[in-house]
């Protein structure tokens, strides 16, 4: 991937400045876990690998592939169809339904898993209630949610919003004139969708599907709770169960390979970046009117995924948390909430800061090497939290052991581990993983600002720092806020990396949920769950407001 021309290009610019060196440093920092994983596997190849490879890895692979395949189908069905209806038809409560469709983003899959696990449990209040009160249902066998199909169900209802958001944006971006042209050519609305809109939006839609896949591959809580082994649980088991970090690293590499194949296939076969979706005509789309029956159908249809993904788990949380109010005010919960919010705020600000630097340096010196940095640094989101965690843990454990030995041998001092199990390492993992979110947002808002604006300011005698702070940052303030909230929400929900890297005696809300749930203290677990969900809902309402505003001002 790296060729010499990159470096030639780099050094040809005599006036290269500190911006490039800083962004070089940041990129190294962000790609560090992957580099360290690869090095580790190359250096300590573990022969036990073959044994694991033979038995377990094929199980992991089978389960992961099954989840990916069915989840993709369902997620596309719910996400794309509701996005199409929302952007095409006018019906009552359209705005609020739109918001509802986003809300499942606030429910991390593991919380939905706990809720549905309870609801489908034979001894749950829900089932007892049905058996006792609805006579013709008293012998019904509810399907076993703690299974592969159950996992697929959970991922579908909680992760379809990724496809929904992206396809909605794509559909509203495609000019309404295409719809009008289709009609003058005598096509029915459904045919216009399949012949014009779907092919035009296929790349962003698959992008959304891949996002949802990456999320489910990253998930640890759901598959663990439902006892379905995937790569993520495999990595965790090898690391915690067998204590073999090298083997975990090897599985991670195999997994990474698998993810890159998915990403490659999408880029290779579906990319239509060259097609310009916009025509120059007016931006506003005219929504189609619909009859009374159709209106009822539209509202109901759009409410199904929202109900499954948000309202059922949310109501479950509300009802159960009433029984455990004392936990709500317990010291643990308060401390964990404080920890989580503080950590999330710190990391999201750091991420924004870093992505501003990387993007701005690519803007003022768009050399090939800079653009290459930009690409590399946005790989993080493709890598599941557990793999990032292992990638970070390996070198830091090595450094720690080095330090411990040095101190022991030279000064006869016993010291604790220095890096591993520190809050620094945890923040590092968050930054690597969630950097992409703000990166893509800030990259596109830089992209929307004409370069002529920079040139105009430079001609008026202003230096690059001044331009960044007085022009770009005020111009993209909303996008920055949007990225801040998005990253914040993701960190609130993060479980798999936190589980591996958290310092001793340090818990986040997500960890608290996980620990209660694994001790089968479901009622107790609803309190931290509810705090996460409520915080996320507030964030999502903000996001949708900001998005509307950006849409209206034509910045998106």
């Amino acid at each position: 991937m790296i060729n010499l021309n990159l470096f030639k290009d780099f050094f040809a610019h005599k006036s290269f400045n500190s911006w490039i060196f800083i962004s070089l440093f940041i990129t190294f920092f962000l790609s560090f876990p992957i580099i360290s994983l690869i090095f580790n596997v190359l250096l300590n190849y573990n022969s036990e690998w073959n044994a694991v490879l033979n038995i377990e890895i094929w199980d992991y692979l089978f389960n992961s592939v099954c989840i990916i395949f069915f989840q993709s189908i369902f997620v596309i069905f719910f996400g794309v169809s509701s996005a199409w209806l929302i952007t095409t038809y006018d019906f009552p409560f359209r705005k609020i339904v739109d918001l509802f469709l986003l809300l499942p983003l606030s429910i991390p899959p593991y919380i939905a898993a706990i809720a549905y696990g309870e609801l489908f449990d034979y001894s749950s209040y829900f089932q007892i209630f049905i058996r006792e009160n609805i006579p013709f249902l008293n012998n019904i066998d509810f399907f076993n949610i703690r299974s592969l199909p159950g996992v697929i169900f959970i991922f579908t209802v909680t992760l379809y919003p990724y496809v929904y958001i992206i396809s909605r944006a794509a559909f509203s971006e495609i000019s309404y004139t295409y719809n009008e042209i289709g009609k003058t050519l005598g096509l029915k609305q459904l045919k216009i969708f399949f012949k014009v809109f779907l092919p035009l939006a296929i790349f962003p839609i698959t992008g959304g599907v891949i996002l949802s896949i990456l999320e489910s591959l990253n998930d640890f809580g759901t598959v663990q709770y439902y006892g379905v082994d995937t790569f993520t649980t495999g990595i965790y088991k090898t690391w915690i169960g067998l204590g073999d970090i090298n083997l975990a690293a090897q599985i991670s590499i195999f997994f990474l390979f698998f993810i890159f194949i998915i990403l490659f296939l999408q880029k290779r076969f579906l990319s239509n970046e060259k097609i310009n979706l916009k025509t120059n005509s007016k931006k506003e789309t005219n929504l189609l009117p619909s009859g009374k029956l159709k209106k009822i159908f539209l509202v109901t249809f759009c409410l199904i995924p929202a109900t499954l993904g948000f309202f059922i788990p949310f109501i479950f949380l509300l009802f159960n948390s009433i029984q455990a109010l004392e936990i709500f005010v317990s010291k643990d919960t308060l401390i964990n909430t404080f920890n989580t919010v503080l950590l999330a705020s710190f990391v999201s600000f750091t991420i924004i800061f870093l992505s501003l630097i990387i993007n701005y340096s690519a803007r003022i010196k768009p050399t090939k090497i800079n653009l290459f940095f930009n690409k590399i640094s946005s790989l993080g989101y493709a890598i599941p939290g557990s793999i990032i965690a292992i990638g970070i843990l390996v070198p830091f454990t090595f450094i720690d052991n080095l330090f411990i030995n040095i101190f022991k041998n030279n000064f006869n001092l016993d010291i604790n581990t220095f890096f591993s199990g520190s809050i620094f390492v945890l923040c590092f993992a968050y930054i690597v993983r969630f950097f992409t979110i703000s990166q893509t947002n800030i990259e596109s808002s830089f992209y929307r600002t004409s370069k002529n604006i920079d040139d105009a300011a430079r001609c008026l005698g202003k230096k690059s720092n001044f331009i960044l702070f007085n022009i770009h940052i005020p111009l993209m303030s909303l996008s920055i806020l949007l990225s801040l909230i998005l990253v914040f929400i993701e960190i609130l929900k993060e479980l798999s990396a936190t589980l591996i890297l958290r310092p001793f005696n340090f818990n986040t809300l997500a960890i608290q949920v996980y620990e209660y749930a694994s001790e089968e203290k479901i009622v107790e677990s609803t309190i931290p769950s509810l705090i996460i969900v409520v915080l996320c809902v507030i964030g999502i309402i903000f996001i949708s407001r900001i998005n509307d505003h950006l849409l209206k001002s034509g910045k998106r």
Partner: protein
Amino acid sequence: MVKDKNIEIQNLSQTKDNKKILDNVNLSIPINKVVCLVGPSGCGKTSLLRAIAGLDNFNSGRIFFDNKIISKPHYSVPTENRNIGLVFQESNLFPHLNVFKNVSFGSKKKKYKDIQKETFEILKKIGLPHYANVYPHQLSGGQKQLVAIARSLLTKPKLILMDEPFANLDERLKNKIRDITLHLLQKTFTTTLIITHDPKDAMFMGDFIAVMNKGKILQFDTPTNIYNKPNSSFVASFFGETLSIKSKVNNKKAKTIFGPINVINSKPGKEIEIVFRSEAFNITKKKSKNLIKKIKSRIIAVRYISENSYLHLDILNNSFKKHIHIKVPGKFIPPKNKICYINIGKKNFFVF
């Protein structure tokens, strides 16, 4: 020809992806004058402008401001220290700042009172003093462009560069804004380089015109000379619709379907190109027996536009079938499909 040199560009060449963008460009921009750089799109106009502004690098050549070198390969005074103004096709006002803040953005004054005085002075000159608190999106296209020009003028630049400043405006507005801009530039004694693809803009604005094609400057002269003494068929055809005929010189004459044409300066046997402006043709009803032949044509359409009649003609000659347009002063509207005869006058054609 030009003595007071302000900006001097010598032998500038630029290559991008093995393609020559600028090919040995030489250009002098005289002080306090407006120079229009005109050429078809993709001819390298904008690249030249960006090189002068210091926004792009180039491979060889030098650029001087007031006889001081400011750009050569591997050496370049940063744009922000060059004291130049830049106006784009889209005004590129800072959307988050109001008109006052936009215009005063480059001000080097320290005291707010001075800035205010300076800014309002220039806002009065463009006739928009009441718009100080208005944001760019509330302005019309023409007003935006004026504010952008005012923003550049405030820093009293050595040179203002304008890249297609009127291209986004409709015809009527364009004439108005063009007029205001020209007088503003004259009043403030600003040296200006305007890039345009529209020869009309160039003729209207320029004290001098430089015609550019394929990375080369073909001709640099006053508008009158550019129109009346073009040095190549490209320059001639760029400033008006033309008909070009290829021929050979024989005994100081060249044979054309319009009869022989005197060519004094060309060697016998040389391949030449004769370019006729649409004003070169006369239209008559009858045949004549002069040396200059009359050619049978059919009228396809006639349009009367601002004191001129434009005739679309098909030439009915077996060896020379062409569709041409002829401009006739006054109102002259013959019926469609009528057969007429055309010949050429003594002016408005050029031999290359």
